[in-house]
């Protein structure tokens, strides 16, 4: 007879809805809009229909986010900009997660001198502020293609995660079920892949969600400085840059993309927190387990 304590294992989607329903909804909406951009955007984002007549119009019904100095509709630019911002953030985070997990898992599982060397490298890398490093790399490289920007962002963002993964792998290595797998004859890679990593997955997922939010802001800042996404592609950061010198007169050009960045980042953070709470057995399980005896 199974020890059935109802509610001991909450379905994680229910937990997410409970903790961050709004955040998830917001992110879902933004993703959908980005995916359906060609059908959702009211105007062509790069069209400049009437440079004289339609330029710098304040927000109105026909242009909810206004127009910029090239008479481009800001809303449409933001919708297409979402595609760039989100895909850069998602892909860069994916690269960072993969690198960080592999590196940390190997360091943690193999241990000894290998671990020491690998971690010293990470320590050195962590001592360099990421933003400065990015600025240095990107400034030296004029007009880099988008895919390279993604790679650079990913390649600079995995150090912290590798430490977290390593720590978890180290502690899990000593658990009985790992020893049991070794006693059964499982090889190192098999144990890592089938036993340890699935248990590290919650950490990785949370780091991924938070990482996306972080990269969005990072990329926006770099694009604002002119180092990130290059024209003709436009991310939210680039749009802010476009409106930067007219903040007083045409505030809407910079404000709306800025709001979108903030909203998305906060939503990602909320979702990350909710996932962490959902995966943490102490927070989600009933205290009934404690009243044993």
């Amino acid at each position, binding site marked *: 007879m199974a020890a059935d304590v109802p509610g001991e294992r909450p379905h994680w989607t229910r937990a997410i809805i409970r903790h961050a329903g709004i955040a998830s909804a917001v992110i879902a909406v933004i993703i959908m809009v980005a995916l359906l951009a060609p059908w959702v955007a009211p105007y062509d984002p790069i069209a400049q229909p009437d440079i004289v007549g339609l330029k710098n119009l304040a927000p109105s019904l026909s242009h909810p986010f206004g127009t910029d100095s090239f008479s481009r509709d800001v809303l449409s630019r933001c919708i297409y900009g979402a595609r760039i911002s989100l895909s850069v953030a998602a892909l860069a985070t994916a690269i960072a997660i993969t690198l960080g997990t592999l590196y940390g898992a190997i360091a943690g599982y193999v241990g000894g001198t290998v671990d020491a060397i690998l971690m010293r490298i990470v320590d050195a890398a962590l001592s360099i502020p990421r933003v400065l490093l990015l600025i240095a790399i990107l400034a030296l490289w004029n007009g880099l293609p988008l895919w390279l920007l993604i790679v650079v962002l990913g390649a600079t963002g995995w150090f912290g995660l590798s430490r977290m993964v390593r720590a978890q792998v180290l502690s899990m290595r000593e658990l009985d079920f790992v020893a049991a797998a070794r006693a059964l004859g*499982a090889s190192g890679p098999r144990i890592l892949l089938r036993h340890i990593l699935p248990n590290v997955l919650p950490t990785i997922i949370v780091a991924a969600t938070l990482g996306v939010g972080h990269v969005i802001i990072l990329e926006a800042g770099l694009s604002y400085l002119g180092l990130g996404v290059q024209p003709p592609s436009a991310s939210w950061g680039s749009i802010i840059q476009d409106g930067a010198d007219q903040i007083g007169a045409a505030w809407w050009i910079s404000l709306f993309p800025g709001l979108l960045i903030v909203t998305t980042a906060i939503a990602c953070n909320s979702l990350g927190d909710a996932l962490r709470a959902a995966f943490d057995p102490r927070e989600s399980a009933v205290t009934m387990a404690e009243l044993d005896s």
Partner: protein
Amino acid sequence: MTDTRTDARTDARTDTPLLHVTRLRKDFPIRQGWQQSLLRRDAGAIRAVNDVSFDIARGETLGVVGESGCGKTTMGRAILRLTEPTSGAVVFDGVDVATLRGAALRSMRRKMQVVFQDPFSSLNPRMTVGAAVKEGMLIHHLAEGRAADHRVKTLFEEVGLSADYASRYPHEFSGGQRQRIGVARALLVEPDLIVCDEPVSALDVSVQAQVINLLQDLQRGRGLTYLFIAHDLSVVRHIADRVAVMYLGRIVEIAPAADLYSDPTMPYTQALLSAVPRPEPGRRTARIVLQGEPPSPANPPPGCVFYSRCQHPLKDEDCTRIVPPLEE
């Protein structure tokens, strides 16, 4: 006088013991900062297992008892190569396991399995119990697909669990059920020897009894050999044929169970047995209460390891110089 190294025992089934351990030693180096290692200051090592030798005959249960820090768990792990022995030989079915590597080691692992103490950490929380149990079969290519699933289900029933538990996760089971799953996992690869490392210590008395009975039934039905490590003397008395008592990394006494419990010769064993509370109110045993604590395993005393706490009247300074040899 029976010598533990030859086979003059009542068990006449086989001539060679299934497991023959000779002078097994496991040291844990005491870590020191890199500055000290540069200065070559010798920090020494913790002698967790110190020159241990014994045999287990096929089909027998050898109980190993001792208190925390005596090295019994480390010894069990060293035999299974879950931790590398520092020196010594572990001859299993004629092959020295301590020197195997790679594929040879892997195939030898099939024959020596383990059941752990903690029902909560011995199963992977993110794997269904069916998958966890099946893994051994997959690693050793014993069966695949539907045949494998069928064998898992049969084995579940054999250990007293319903067959459709296989798709559930560990947290859905009680401690006793998880131990049964652990036993099933060990059994599926059809081992000859199972090292039971405190398999019932974390269970309630009534559940403990169920698991002990299960282990005994399985042993009888499959001709298994057990190395049963425990600190609970009553449990070991019940299940073991012979018992070894460990203290500070050494075996200090080894004898058939009935003899050890009725007439222990070594002072430590005597003290250990007298310390166990008996469920008989009003019976005041002449209890030998040991004073003090065991000496540190980082610095095992020369001669007899028990000397510092021994209260035997015949104790003398010989005890500090000569390590007493193991005789029945």
